[in-house]
């Protein structure tokens, strides 16, 4: 970003001083191994009232930027170059005392984990009151009054009670609102939001995002919004910086960047996220090849070079690539030496279309499956009997899955997805109901009573790549164990052959067999996890959020891999997820769960179009979509997710439902309404009301049914 271009921000008039300006900012961490550059040559100009999004994958340095702005880099972090101007003053020259004055009053921050960010041993009121007490020297009473007011401002019910609570006594969403209130208490001119909703459920996230938008409107606070989620940035920000491996690679207005991106990485990013319109058959996702370089293993020249389809040996791997102004919009910059030479329309990434797969016979039938847990108040003492509590983890689940079909189970935390998986896998016994695989009822057949064949038929891919593999054993050994255990092969050489074969299938080099998990990246671990699940040629694979912990660019590759293998083996896939975008992309049918019950089920199209269950409607509205052309109808939920150990009577959703019918929903269980063949909605609303619902997501002009641009 050249310094001589004091052009206006979108909403601001001429000669305003930027609230914050980063000029060629470089930040390094100093560890035993030496200096590790975390952020290189970072430029940012934030005008008053402006909201600037910083987006990037893990390790790209986006959080470091936020902490650098706060001048809080820990003992081994340091700004090694550039300037950092706050209202025109260089923060690097400020004394500790000046910084202290600034922090919390002029610059405030909202953090990723609200629970960890609040002092567990201090009441919320006091934590809030500290801000005015120390920044404005007001009395404690005054400060508490202000805190009370601010809590009301962030839409928290019963502020007095919350002020008198400890952080752990309120829910995650409320905690985050408290943190936001704390940040706003001294009316800062700059608010830093570091992934403020990542730890929250989708419907709660939507509320927070709404709040943030309100704030910027109401207080005119300038914001830097850091996220890995393009959709969220789109919803909240005016401008965006895309970061990759410590560098900003593209900066510009939201619309410009979203629709006329000029950096291959930005485009790759968009191509690898499932936007509406993406489809596993017609428009498969396109993953960015390769993986993020580690900070101390960055390539020369362009950091994205090795993964870039336009990589040019002599140009891209040499020297420092500067930011270059692009002609597509005002203040649009890109760090690419070749942006002007690329034909951005012609070379749009596109994967091969694939023929749709016809589902086969019913493989898995779940019939009235119910799982209750008895929780003793405390099981510590032998002699003392505690009261028991029943947790209804799964309540009368009914659905089927066919061969080669992908059934998605969607829900937020506490919806009973994991319990269902456990029952299916035989680690828990069902309280009632049946799970029939082939013609065998598994509901009350624990895994140690199942024969190897049955076990092999049903395998699982796990969520957390860091947990999925045993860190103490080699990759090959772990796959081989499955092969032997299921009796696929017994001969040593043949087992080895099969391991190699599986590694080929998941597109990993064969010598990975000798590696240990810690030598693998997250995506590679998930691939091994998939290989392990398919080692015994399963009929049904349960994938429990297999990509949610992965970086966006890697997600696509793993998702595609899973799809390919499924297609090839005609495997039934039960895909557990909270992410409706992914689900829409890959599922044939969707089961929406809430607090252990099925709210709605049907084909993907049925779910994504009216009639909706009110919960589905809210869920759809809550999912941020990184597409400027999409219009979403806002359906905001109030309240928090109830605890599964203490669910509401009647309809579990009744406490938050905008359509709630007083006296009915909270007392009686909703009836199951069959809207179409296989499309079921459990709701008290009559069919007409349901059918009358407007679509949540709409595409105003039909051109934009294509993904991106």
């Amino acid at each position: 970003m050249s310094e001589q271009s004091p052009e206006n921000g979108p909403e601001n008039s001429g000669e305003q001083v930027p609230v914050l300006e980063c000029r060629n900012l470089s930040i390094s961490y100093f560890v035993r191994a030496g200096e590790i550059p975390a952020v290189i040559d970072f430029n940012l100009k934030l005008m008053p009232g402006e909201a600037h999004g910083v987006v990037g994958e893990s390790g790209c340095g986006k959080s470091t930027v936020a902490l650098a702005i706060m001048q809080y880099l820990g003992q081994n972090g340091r700004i090694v170059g550039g300037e950092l101007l706050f209202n025109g003053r260089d923060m690097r020259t400020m004394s500790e005392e000046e910084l202290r004055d600034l922090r919390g009053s002029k610059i405030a921050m909202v953090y990723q984990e609200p629970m960890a960010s609040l002092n567990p041993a201090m009441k919320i009121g006091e934590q809030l009151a500290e801000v005015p007490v120390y920044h404005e020297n007001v009395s404690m009473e005054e400060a508490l009054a202000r805190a009370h007011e601010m809590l009301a401002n962030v839409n928290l019910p019963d502020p007095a009670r919350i002020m008198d609570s400890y952080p752990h006594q309120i829910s995650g969403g409320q905690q985050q609102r408290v943190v936001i209130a704390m940040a706003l208490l001294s009316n800062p001119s700059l608010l830093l939001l570091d992934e403020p909703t990542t730890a929250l459920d989708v419907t709660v996230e939507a509320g927070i995002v709404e709040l943030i938008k309100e704030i910027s409107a109401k207080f005119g606070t300038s914001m830097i919004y850091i996220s890995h989620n393009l959709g969220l940035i789109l919803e909240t920000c005016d401008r965006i910086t895309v970061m990759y491996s410590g560098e900003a690679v593209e900066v510009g207005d939201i619309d410009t960047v979203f629709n006329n991106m000029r950096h291959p990485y930005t485009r790759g990013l968009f191509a690898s996220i499932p936007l509406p319109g993406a489809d596993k058959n017609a428009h498969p996702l396109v993953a960015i090849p390769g993986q993020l370089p580690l900070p101390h293993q960055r390539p020369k020249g362009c950091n994205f070079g090795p993964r870039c389809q336009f990589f040019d040996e002599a140009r891209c791997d040499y020297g420092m690539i500067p930011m270059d102004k692009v002609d597509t919009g005002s203040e649009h910059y890109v760090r690419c030496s070749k942006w002007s030479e690329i034909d951005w329309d012609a070379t749009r990434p596109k994967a091969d279309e694939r023929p749709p797969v016809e589902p086969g016979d019913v493989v898995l039938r779940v019939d009235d499956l119910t799982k209750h847990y008895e929780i003793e108040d405390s099981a510590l003492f032998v002699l003392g009997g505690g009261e028991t509590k029943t947790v209804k983890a799964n309540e009368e689940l009914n659905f089927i899955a066919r061969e080669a079909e992908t059934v998605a189970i969607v829900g937020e935390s506490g919806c009973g997805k994991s319990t269902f998986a456990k029952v299916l896998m035989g680690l828990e016994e069902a309280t009632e109901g049946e799970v029939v695989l082939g013609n065998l009822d598994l509901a009350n057949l624990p895994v140690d009573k199942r024969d190897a064949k049955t076990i092999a038929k049903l395998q699982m891919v796990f969520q957390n790549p860091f947990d999925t593999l045993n860190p103490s054993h080699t990759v090959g050994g772990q796959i081989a164990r499955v092969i032997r255990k299921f009796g696929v092969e017994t001969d040593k050489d043949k087992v080895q052959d099969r391991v190699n074969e599986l590694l080929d299938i998941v597109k990993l080099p064969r010598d990975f067999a000798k590696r240990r998990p810690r030598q693998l990246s997250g995506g590679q671990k998930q691939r091994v996890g998939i290989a392990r699940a398919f080692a015994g040629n399963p009929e049904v694979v349960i994938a429990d959020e297999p990509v949610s912990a992965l970086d966006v660019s890697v997600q696509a590759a793993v998702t595609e891999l899973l799809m390919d293998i499924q297609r090839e083996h005609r495997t039934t896939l039960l895909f557990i997820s909270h992410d409706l975008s992914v689900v829409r992309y890959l599922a044939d049918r969707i089961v929406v769960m809430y607090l252990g019950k099925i709210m709605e089920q049907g084909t993907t199209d049925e779910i994504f179009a009216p009639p909706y269950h009110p919960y589905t409607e809210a869920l759809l509205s809550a999912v941020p979509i990184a597409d400027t052309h999409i219009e979403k109808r806002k359906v905001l939920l109030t309240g928090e997710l109830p605890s599964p150990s203490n669910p509401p009577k009647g309809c579990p959703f009744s406490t938050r439902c905008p359509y709630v019918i007083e006296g009915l929903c909270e007392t009686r269980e909703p009836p199951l309404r069959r809207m179409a063949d296989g499309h079921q909605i459990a709701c008290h609303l009559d069919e007409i009301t349901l059918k009358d619902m407007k679509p949540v997501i709409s595409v105003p002009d039909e051109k934009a049914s294509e993904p991106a641009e």
Partner: protein
Amino acid sequence: MVKLILRRLGQMVLIMAVVSFVLFLVFDSDKFKKQIAVNELGGFGLQTLTEQEYQDWLSSKGLDVPFYTRYLDWVGNVLQGDFGFSFEKNTEVGPLLAERLINTGILAFWVFALMIPIALTLGVIAGMKEGSAQDRSVSFISVLTTSMPEIATAIFLTVIFALGLGWLPAKSAMTQGFDWRQLVLPVATLVLYDFGYVARMTRASMAEVMTSQYIRTAILKGIPYRRVIMRHALRNALIAPFTVIVLQLNWLLSGVVVVEVFFQYNGFGKMLLDAALFGDIYVIQAGTLAAVFVAVFSQIISDVGYTLLNPRIRFS
């Protein structure tokens, strides 16, 4: 909370019952009876007894009754406050135990009175700035002192202050009644050995708290550093050391044995060692019960304190 305490107490009673039963069972062996006889009568004395006389002797000591009968009697007596009779010390166990516990209590009081402030202060100072010079020196001192067994510390202190400089008496038998000068070396030995452990715990806890996100929040809220430390960090950082300190009570009961023996201080630990070597079953029983009581009780205090200090647990 009350429930928790009651449950813990119940557990304590159960443990005590099991422990005392096992002890009775163990000390019922012929070997132990013979050990008592040797200690009472001497090797030559015992040899002069005929089998019949030996049996008579056992009977005079009440050792001929089956152990379960003795156990039940003993339980009954203990419930009435009678802890039995010491073979060796020829006295009621109750008053003996009380006196020795008081002596050890005096020792423990001073140990704690000195150790806690020293350990906490050093720990907090070290943990505030991990990796700083003050951290390194505190860590070094604490690892050094903890690495010296009490017996070694006792020796070094005695050699320097009693034998070398002659400032303090080498032994602490308190033959002429209570003398604080005789208390200095045992207390110093225990403090030196123990404070390092608590200081390290405090340091670790403080360091952990200092890297926590809520401290970051507090700092980035712009409140003064002093307030960050005093109001935000300390309370959270002291929860873990608090429980450790209370549990040191239990440790102290082990630690005092060697210190009391070395310094000839007539406390609980020395009593227990004497009793064990003599086979003085009722003293062993009473001492063990006291030890178990202290252990479980300190556990309860630690749990309760932890709960009280930690609102996260208090209100869940």
